């Protein structure tokens, strides 16, 4: 009896670990987009994964996820704080919500407001976004992959 109880006590944390980070993975990629002359002289957008950028460069942030577990992943939420030197520039994947106050409150950008030093508040703009988040309404099926993305500009 006593041995069984100890085994059970160990079993619960072990199960929690098994269903944890081993089963869902998240990868972050940042691409810089340059317009370069393509075949036939037509301008085309070239994507690189840069080591360095300069102010004004357009960046594409891509977050790829994978459910490597045997069960669907429910309550899946991806959150990305916008780096301080980057201004959010839109083009986000559908369903995103935003924070303009460092992650304290969240909502669609259209309903968020920013307090002004002169008193009152104004509607939030792209440049106010501090965090972007996707709350997945549906579970990620076992074995499924996907990605979300948004654009930013180097300030």
């Amino acid at each position, binding site marked *: 009896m006593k041995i069984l109880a100890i085994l059970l006590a160990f079993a*619960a944390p072990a*199960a*929690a670990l098994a*269903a*944890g*980070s081993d*089963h*869902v*993975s*998240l*990868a*972050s*990629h*940042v691409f810089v987009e340059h317009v370069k002359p393509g075949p036939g002289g037509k301008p085309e957008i070239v994507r690189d994964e*840069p*080591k*360095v*950028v*300069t*102010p*004004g460069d357009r960046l594409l*942030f891509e*977050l790829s*996820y994978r459910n490597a577990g045997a*069960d669907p*992943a*429910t*309550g*899946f*939420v*991806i*959150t*990305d*704080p916008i*780096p*301080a*030197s*980057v201004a959010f520039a839109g083009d986000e994947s559908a369903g995103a919500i935003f924070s303009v*106050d*460092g*992650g*304290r409150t969240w909502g669609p950008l259209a309903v968020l407001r920013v307090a002004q030093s002169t008193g009152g508040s104004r509607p939030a703009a792209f440049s106010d976004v*501090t*965090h972007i988040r996707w709350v997945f309404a549906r579970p*990620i099926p076992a074995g499924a992959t996907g990605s979300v993305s948004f654009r930013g500009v*180097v*300030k």
Partner: protein
Amino acid sequence: MRYQAMGAESSAFVKKTMLAAAAVMAAGAIATPASAAGTTAGTTISNVATATYDLPNGGSGTIQSNVVTIKVDELINVTVAWHDPGDVVGPAGGTNQVLSFTVTNGGNGTEAFTLGTVAALGGDDFDPTITAIVLDTNGNGAYDPGVDTVYVPGTNDPTLAPDQSTTVFILSTLPLSAADGNRGRAELSATSKKGTGTPGTSFAGKGQGGGNAVVGATGGKGQADGFYKVLKASVAFVKSAAVADPFGGTSQVPGATITYTLAATVSGTGNIANLKVTDSVPAGTTYKSGSITLDGTALTDAADSDAGSFSGTGIAVNLGTVATGATRTVTFKVTIN
């Protein structure tokens, strides 16, 4: 520094109960970029995302993505603007005529600039003779002779922080031959000492913070033209004579009176100061006393409070300052001996 602030947010996200308090702190720690020139060269951009999801036992799991780290290179951008409100007006032959320019470092790193000038430009009437480039040493935006320092290339090249501006003056001499209303153009240029080239040209390792220096949209060189305008008044003299003989005719016979008319017309821009009309009495004639008139008004021969005088050999009328567009007419009479 910035990345640390975000790291604090990410870990706060795990501990949901602490989220609100930590996020407020983190928001305060994120420096507002004050620079229109952009993120300071050498700054690191780090992106890391977090995912949470339900665990089968009712808890919540959290994973972090890999961290993507990108460095911000130095962007070289410089602009020059002529900031006089309009053409700088000066007299023909005027020296130390001042054009004012603003040189702005629009890049994201501290940068030194070589200044240069060009006077031989098209689209103008004359080339000013540029005598000096002067730095606005006391930063008051106005040229102060003896206070502001004359620029010597390679010695006191202006060094500007991101977004910083400085005023630079061009001093010129305007040509004596310039006519009223003529314009002369002068250009000031500022060239990045790190290099120039087509936008996108990269100078490895030259950037502030150890990265590259990349030529921005301005090509690493900025320039602007300013204009001088010469304002000049000129005087045209017209002298005419009318003879009246004692017999009612116009024959030049002894005893005939000649009335000389001297018309001084000022044209151009501005006025002529201390304009004086003088004429000598021709040989073989005798000045007729008290015959000087100015614009129809008689003047005395004595050198006194009125403008006219007779010296014994010729007449003089002081017109003082005559404005452009005005004509002053002096007459006097002589008799043929």
